[in-house]
């Protein structure tokens, strides 16, 4: 696994570098630092690595966020870890925009070394998994600024919005809204069943069906309607 460290403080840079190098030497598992720099342009110029440690405030016209964004656009699979002070921490922004793996807070010097190592291990685990597993049955949800793969068994039901082309996907304890047509998900998996003009349910997560009132009850207590004609398929 190739590692790049970009940090404007030379002492910190050296510190992180040492920590990782010592660890790699001990384990001998192919973790290798290919670049340490204070200049973000060098990171961009470098071809490609698998794991990045980036300072957020780089003392450069390019911030850590911009750098991370560029790296992420180039390589959706790499691990990006941000090193930051407590006050600069903008957790959500980095999570949503760059899908950062983790954050290392450098205010507490004593914990820095340990945190670098635990994060590095997580990154290494993820690195090993890339290309290894293809989850068998997943549905991909795409919308502006949002992409997610969802396992079939997590899906409760899809509900269409009456007038606009929006669908709300209901999971156990989560609602995800995206653009699309309901009929595209009808054939997504054998356990999907359209029980109403506006609903496609996952049979795996149905608790029971009230045929008299035509209501489908799910395992999490949620309900949806079924039409008189289509409810027959839900035996």
């Amino acid at each position, binding site marked *: 696994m190739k590692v790049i460290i970009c940090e404007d403080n030379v002492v910190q840079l050296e510190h992180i570098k040492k920590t990782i190098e010592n660890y790699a030497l001990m384990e001998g598992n192919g973790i290798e630092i290919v670049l340490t720099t204070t200049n973000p342009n060098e990171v961009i110029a470098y071809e490609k690595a698998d794991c990045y440690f980036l300072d957020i405030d780089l003392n450069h016209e390019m*911030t850590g*966020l911009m750098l991370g964004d560029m790296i992420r656009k180039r390589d959706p699979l790499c691990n990006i870890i941000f090193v930051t002070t*407590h*006050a*600069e*921490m*903008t*957790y*959500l*922004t980095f999570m*949503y*925009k760059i899908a950062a793996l983790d954050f290392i807070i450098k*205010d507490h010097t004593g914990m820095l070394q340990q945190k670098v190592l635990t994060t590095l291990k997580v990154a290494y685990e993820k690195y090993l998994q890339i290309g290894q597993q293809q989850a068998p049955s997943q549905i991909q949800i795409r*919308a*502006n*600024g*949002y992409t997610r793969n969802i396992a079939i068994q997590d899906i409760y039901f899809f509900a269409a*919005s009456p007038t*606009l*082309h*929006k669908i709300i996907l*209901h999971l156990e*304890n*989560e*609602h*995800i*809204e*995206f*653009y699309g047509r309901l009929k595209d998900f009808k054939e997504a998996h054998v356990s999907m069943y359209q029980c109403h003009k506006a609903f496609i349910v996952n049979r795996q997560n149905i608790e029971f069906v009230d045929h008299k*009132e035509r209501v489908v009850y799910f395992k*999490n*207590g*949620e309900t949806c*309607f079924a039409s008189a004609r289509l409810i027959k398929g839900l035996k």
Partner: protein
Amino acid sequence: MWSISYLSLITYQFLVLSILPLYFSKITITKNLVLKVSLLIVAPPVVLFAFIGVYAVAYVILVVSFLIYQQTKRWRNIVHVLFTIVLAVMADHISSLVVYHLSNGMEAIITSPLVQLVVSMSILFILVIVYKRLFSYFAGWYMFEQYIIPAMIPLLLMTIVFMYTDIVLMDDLSFIKSVQHNVFFFVIYLMLFIIIIGFFVYLVIKNIHIKQKEMQLKEFNSYVESLEDINRDMRKFKHDYMNILTSMRHFIDSKNYSELETYFYRHILQTEENEQAHEMAFSMLNCLHIASLKGLLTTKLIQAQTLHVPMHVEIVEDIDRIALDEIQLNRMCGILLDNALEASKNATEPWIRLAFIRMDGVVLIACVNTFSSNQSHELKVHEIFKEGFSTKGEERGLGLSILRQMVDASPKLRLNTKINGNLFIQELFIDEERV
């Protein structure tokens, strides 16, 4: 006169009067409900009609209104009851006229209840469709619900009283003449009604704009105040800086490094962290260039401070435009934050994080907060959006269902909601205008 057909005509009318409002209020009509309606609402007035005539309508209005309120818990839906009556009377009158003119004065056709029934049903059908369309068109308008409907209710009540006095006073001898008369009056009345409503809307909009301006000014003032606070803090810090350095000098002079270390970590770093967090919360707002939203966030930040809820706002990139009506945007952010504050203030470890994130073609407003989890019942996402849901009992918890409605009404908004342990996560995506 009490023939079967006449009776069925009355039954039909009362049935229409009770079922249509339920339909408009989007109550799903189940067997149980139909039974309730026919026993409670349709049967008594049919009997009552024999004794007190048209006044039986009053009974229908009361009971249907009550039923709708019971089912939906929104008194605003009463407007549907009143409108249904107006529509039904209109349909009735128009059908009388239509039948009269088409039948060339043939007595048999005019007095036949069946013909009357069919014609008035079809006219009513058209009116209902028009009404439903118009209503759902206006319902997307956010002031409609709050201001216009409450104003409509007394006006409609007056209309109905007017219509019925007209009907009661109707001259039986020249039936068709008086019907013509009535329709004429109704049309004039309707026009007046529309003019009054239009004028009212105009006033309301004006009023809202004035209020909005006042709000902005107030929020801007609080923003300025908090900037002054920060400025004061800075000055204090600069002043303290010297003191801190001299206090450290004491340790260094005596070469007491271990104590210096504890002093440094315990006292100096700690205070600095606290102050920085406070400053950061406000300084992040610098990247936000929407004045009214900035004001709102300032107000909420101050509110969070008084409630002792740490609140972080993340705006890393410049946000100068969000492709959404500013009032609507503020309202949505207000709901998100009010809800977060309400939920988080009782949590064991309260905090709120709000982020404005610009991504490809979309602005994401993410709001994450902790909430106090109830051991006996695990909170589910679908319960939250139910109208009237609140951990605090009645008349609250409207916020999130309003948010959901606003998102549903707009093609460029998407809202994801998630509960993860004791974290409540809301992601509001606002699509940028496609050029």
